[in-house]
Each structure stands twice: as C-alpha cells, then as structure tokens.
C-alpha cells in the first residue's frame, strides 16, 4: 500500500505552517510571502488532485464540441483533418489508460486549431457569420470558465460568488442559471 497523496500533501502543509514558516527571519518578507503561497498552493493541489483527470477530459470534449459547432455556421469552415482530430479526441477520455499528459497534448492541439479557426472567421466580411461565431465562443466559454473558476476558487481571487460552483458540481452537472455580476459590470 502506498501512503495516499492526500496524506503526503497534508503532512507537507503542516510542515510549512508549523515548522518552516515560523523559522523564517521575519525581516525576509519575500521568503515569508513565498512560504504562505507554497502552503496555499499545496492546499489548492490537495483540493484539485482528485479532479485533475476529470477536468482535462471535460476540456477535451468541450473543445471537440466547439470545433463541431463551427461547422454549423459554415459546413466548409473546418477541414476534414481537424474534424477527424476532434472526433478522435472525444474517444480519449473514456480510455482508463489514457494519461493526463496525453489528454493535455490533445487538448492543446484542439485549442490551437480553434485559435486558427477563430482568426479565419474574424477575417470574413460577413458580419452575420462573425456574430454567430462570437456567440458560439461566448457560450462555450461560459461553461468552460465555470469549470476553470471552480478549479482555482481556493486561491480567493474570484469576485463573482453568485456563479461560483463547488468543483464537483461544476464538472458534473450542466447548470441552468444566469450569471449575476451586473453589479460589477
């Protein structure tokens, strides 16, 4: 039996907080700030670790779906090769032996393809096409960012509490609510 990752992370956090940080010279503010960030980062990783693979798998599916959505605007906009890549990518997350690195690699490829497609659409003269693509991206990102924000919520930077979900909920269930951030925007 291996000691669990959670156990090891908790031990590291305890060491940082109870032994290492108090031993730092109080005049060394850079070291103190970094020690605080290291402890916070370990705690964040502890919260994320069970979901990392799951998070990346959803990301792959979301990007493959975005590429396919572009074909609804213009059936000829996406090359057969990119469509094949997107279709192949969707089969990856269900393979239990697919590594996180492999998922990341595929995801990066899909993201690059999307960036090029977005640039191609932006160069079109047809304003209606541009608007439809913008709408697709904005809706895609609404779901995407709900997951991203939940994943790093423990850093304490988020300012949209009404739409900030617990991580498992953000990954697990489609949401039906509107973002309540008008007080800021």
């Amino acid at each position, binding site marked *: 039996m291996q000691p669990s990752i959670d156990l090891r992370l908790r031990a590291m956090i305890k060491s940082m907080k109870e032994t290492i940080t108090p031993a730092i010279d109080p005049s060394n503010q850079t070291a103190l*700030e*970094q020690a605080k960030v290291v402890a916070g980062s370990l705690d964040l990783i502890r919260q994320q670790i069970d979901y990392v693979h799951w998070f990346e798998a959803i990301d792959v599916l979301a990007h493959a779906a975005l590429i396919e959505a572009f074909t609804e605007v213009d059936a000829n906009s996406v090359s057969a090769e990119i469509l094949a890549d997107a279709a192949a990518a969707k089969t990856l997350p269900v393979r239990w032996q697919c590594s996180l690195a492999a998922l990341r690699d595929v995801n990066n490829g899909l993201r690059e393809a999307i960036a090029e497609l977005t640039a191609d659409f932006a160069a079109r003269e047809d304003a209606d096409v541009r*608007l439809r693509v*913008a*709408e697709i991206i904005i809706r895609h*990102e*609404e779901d995407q960012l709900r997951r991203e924000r939940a994943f790093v919520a423990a850093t304490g*930077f988020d300012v949209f509490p009404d739409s900030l979900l617990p991580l498992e909920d953000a990954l697990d269930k489609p949401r*039906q609510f509107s973002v309540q951030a008008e007080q800021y*925007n």
Partner: protein
Amino acid sequence: MIDIRNSPPADWIASIRARFPTERTVDSALTRKLEQRTCQSEDWTRERDIATGLRDLISRHTQDPFTIRGLRPLSGGASKEQYVFELDWTYHGERRTGERMVLGRDPVESIVITERTREFQLLNAVKSDVPVPPPYWEDSAGAHLGRPSIVCGFVEGVQKPPTGTSNVTGIGVQFDAEHRAALGPQFIDYLARIHTLDVQGADLSSFDIPSAGTTEDIDRQINWWARVWEEDRLEAVPLMNLAEQWLRRNRKPLDFVSLVHGDYRTGNFLFDPVSKRITTILDWELGFFGDRHFDLAWATMPLFCTPDESGAPLCSSLYARDDFLRNYERASGIPIDEERFEYYRIFAHWRAITMTLGAGLRAADGSKTHQDVVLAWFGSISYPFLESLRQLLENVHCVSSVSGQFEDKLVKDWVSAP
C-alpha cells in the same frame, strides 16, 4: 506537442516582429526576451555579485567616494528583483549619509517585460508633479548587473492599513471608511495630474508618442499585447482571440494624448499610516502615451474591487464606480467618453489576462524569476478576469445568456462516445 515558443528560431521572431508593429522600445524589450528564451536563470543573485555590480554602476555616475551598506532583498512585486541598501555619497556637492535606495533588477523573464529606460524617463518627467521614487541611475543594457536595472530613492510608506490583509501584489487590499475618505481624493487627484501633465521639455526619447486624431496609440497597444500573447501563451484561449478581433474592429481615433500610468490601482501606491498622505506612486514601467480611459478602465476592473461594509463593490477599494468617474471628471476637467471607457474595459481585461495567463505563467514555466511560485499562484486570477471579459463581450455582441447549453451537448457527447 512541441511548442515553438520554448525555443523560438530567428525567422519566427522576425515574423512576429513584422506581424505586430509597436513602439521601438517595446519591440526591443520583447525581442530580447525571445532571443534569451533558452537562457536559464543564472546563479547570479548572490548578494556578493549584486553588490559588485551595484558598485560598478554607481561608480560610473559619481566621481566622489561612496559606500554601499546593508544590501538586502526587498519584498513586494512579482515582476522585478528588488534590493534595498543605504548609500553614503555626495549628491551635487552635498554629502549624504545612509540614504536609503532601492535597486530593481529584471529577472530573465517576467510577468512584464519593458525597457528600464522608459520607466526612468517617466519618473524624471513626472517627479515635480507626482510623488514618485526619485530616479538616480539606470542600466538598461544590463552592463553592470547582468540584467537591466534601475536605482531609485527609497520612499517610506505602507501599501495597506497595519491591520489589513491582501492576496499577492496588493490585490484585495481593503480600506475602512476613514482611509477611503483620506486616500480616495488623493488617488483621483494624482491620476488627473498624470493625465493632464505637460511633459514638454522632458527627455522621452524612448517613447513613440502618438498623434491625436489617429489610431497610432491603440494600434501599437493592441499589437504590443497581442504580440505578448502570441509569444508567451502556454495554450490558446478562444475568448482571447475574440477579444483581440473585437478590439481591432472597434478602435477609435485618439481624442486627447495623455500620459497613461498603465497599472494605476490600489497596491501601486504607498501612504503614510499616520497622516494617510500618499507618499509615492509606484510601478511606472507600463506607462505610455495614449488614451486616459485605459487607466480609468484598469482601476475600475472588478478584480481590483473589494466590498465596502454593506457589500457594495469599491473600485480600487476606494470608490463606487460612478463616484470614481465623476470625481475624476471634476479633478481633471476632462469629460469621460462612455463609449471609449467601455472599449477600454475590454482592452484592460484582455491585457490583464495576457500578463497573468500569458507572460506570468510562461516565466514561471521556464523557472525564469525569483517569484515563480507567486506567478504560478497569480495565474489563477486569470479565470475570473476571463469571466469578466466574457460578460463584457457578451454585452457588446448582444448575446443572450443560455447557460448550460454547451454542457448539455458535451455530456451527450461523452455518453455517446465509443
């Protein structure tokens, strides 16, 4: 997957420079960054080496004997290595003992890459009108300290009230009503002074100053940050492409040329904790000449807001947004163009994400700074920034929110996947 950005060849660098024309000194700083990308952060940060380089730099500028004492690292900031020291020296015939100074030295890469000359020239241009650290010497070529550096006088002051808390780089600093009442008017007054400053006669040779009535300023700004995103991003983000394209299509000619601070927010000024007088405005390295609405949009971003006692958001932890804007108009005597302000809100978010998710994470990924762990942590702020940008783009594109639609399809795809 091979990322060309990890080891950019000369022809790729040349194509990037041609694709994103910007100010001369912005181009030179970014080009140097790319040319040094494969360099590792050298073991040159020992204080003995820093002291030798600092002595070399100062000796180039003063003929009289001097002594450097108490050189030590200084906390604060995520972009530059900082050291504080005391200097015994002679300034214009006056003997000074124990004058405290700050050395700022560029890391190999950072969340912000700029030429030190720009910062040095701006500090000199504004020092009579705005409280800033007195600039003494700069080494933009890194001839003395291995990397570009600047030496300024140390200014006393605090970033937050003694009992206050914050996240990194001054984000999340909160002020009580007493501090807000004292600091708010000063914050606005200095911003108004910066935007209306007459800089005639100042040496600003490192800047390409745009003309009113043209789009030179915004074209250079968009190209600057689009270039940084292209050079530094670890992964593509569709919303960033959409934002850049919207900014290019919707830019307007400049109405009035202002000096723009570029990072004007709570966290970038110090104040005396007793008198609550602002003692210095910091971090001028992102300064440029262009549209004042940038600073207004930057200072009012939701991520730089904190709630007041009733939970209402305060821009830069000081004012409700409308109060901030109206007070600024009164102080500066220049009206705010609502359309430009909305435009720059999108620009400000897009630029912030380029810094935190692009340049900052690239620097940390390459182990290029003394603050890698802070930059990696700070990268997480990009996602609420992106959500805020998404909402702004939703408004300008008049896209109705149909939340969950994409995930519905996504889950069906997963269920039906072989």
